[in-house]
């Protein structure tokens, strides 16, 4: 996952999830295209100051072309210029809500889940899932190399050979790793029945308070502008 700008402390993981959910849910209610763009722009400014500028740029490098394609499609389907701009805006908002969660540190999220009293199996299962992804990539590479050593080209192998030489060994390896990991966790006293503890708890910082305040101001402003019918 992507990180926040260097020398900046990331926001609280649970706060980021809440901002992300509220951003998109609030976006659902905005009907005016100008208001939608003002809302997105003000959020981008707020979170750029909080150290998310690089992540915003990275996400928008993907989201803007994608939104433009879908917006063009909406235009061709007869939505008009306003409709296609609205589509682009909504996809941009979807992208922005992703920025907030894409920057969350997996370990931080697992720690904060334990801290708020989430069950042990949840944080443990989540951590194993995240940490296992690179391990799985290595295993796939190892099996492909073993195939090549035996003179089989993984790219040109037929269905039968792929099944026998790649799929089955990979699944067997996964089962073995899972058994070893389970025994290893049990011998270290991990259990799904006991409550987990955290060595370094995460706290709601001053920066979190400022961002929350700015975020609430943005939300209230949108409601106010829509209510008085400025646009």
């Amino acid at each position, binding site marked *: *996952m992507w990180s926040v700008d260097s020398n900046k402390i990331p926001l609280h993981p649970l706060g980021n*999830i809440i901002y*992300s*959910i509220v951003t*998109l849910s609030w976006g*659902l209610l905005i009907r005016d295209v100008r208001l939608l763009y003002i809302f997105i722009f003000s959020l981008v400014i707020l979170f750029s100051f909080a150290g998310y500028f690089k992540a915003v740029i990275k996400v928008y490098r993907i989201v803007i072309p*994608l939104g433009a*394609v*879908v917006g063009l*499609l*909406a*235009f*061709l*389907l*007869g*939505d008009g210029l306003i*409709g*296609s701009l*609205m*589509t682009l805006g*909504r*996809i941009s908002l*979807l992208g922005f*809500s*992703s920025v907030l*969660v*894409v920057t*969350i540190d*997996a370990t931080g*999220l697992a720690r904060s889940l334990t801290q708020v009293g989430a069950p042990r*199996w*949840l944080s*443990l*299962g*989540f951590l*194993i*899932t*995240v940490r*296992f*992804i690179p391990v*799985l*990539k290595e295993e796939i590479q190892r099996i492909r190399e073993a195939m090549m050593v035996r003179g089989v080209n993984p790219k040109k192998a037929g269905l039968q050979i792929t099944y026998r030489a790649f*799929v*089955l060994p990979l*699944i*067997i390896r*996964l*089962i073995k*790793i*899972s*058994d070893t*990991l*389970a*025994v290893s*966790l*049990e011998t270290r006293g*991990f*259990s*799904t029945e006991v409550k987990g503890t955290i060595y370094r708890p995460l706290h709601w910082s001053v920066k979190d308070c400022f961002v929350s305040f700015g975020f609430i101001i943005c939300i209230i402003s949108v409601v106010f502008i829509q209510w008085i019918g400025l646009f």
Partner: protein
Amino acid sequence: MKIGDIVFLAIIAACVTIIGFVTVPLVLAIPIPGIRSLAPAFFYGILMAIGLMKVRKIGSLFLIALFNGLVLLMMSWVMFANNLLAGLIAELLVLLIFKSYDVERAVFIGAGLYMPLTIPVSLLITAWAGGAGMQRLITDPFVICGVLLGTGILSFVGAFVGIKIGRELKKAGVLKVQV
């Protein structure tokens, strides 16, 4: 659930996540609603079936969906909600019809139903983001039926293949069923 069950289900969830990372970007630019569920459906079916063949406990399917969803939550909470809802509904349906995963038919239905159930939420999001034109496209019965049917077929074929693999591994003594 024991720690061994959680570990295995989490590993299966990691595999499911990787399959999603590989297949979904290939179809990301295709403006057909629900195509992102269709592309990985076959592989999801296989993995879900293998997971359920080993951990035959109520809640297994939901846990795979939850762990996969938690990783996807780090990209968008919409994907998390989508996976969680699909996993929950599939699990409830299996619970209502079979009461447990003791029979292979329950594994087949559970693993096969998961992916088609992710389509309705995807369509709702596409309708919201895509505007009136996209809403017309989504309400076209040919589009909905085509995507649902394609995803369903691929997912159930995958579940069937997964059960076959599971049986073979069980016969070889590698896959020990945890009940």
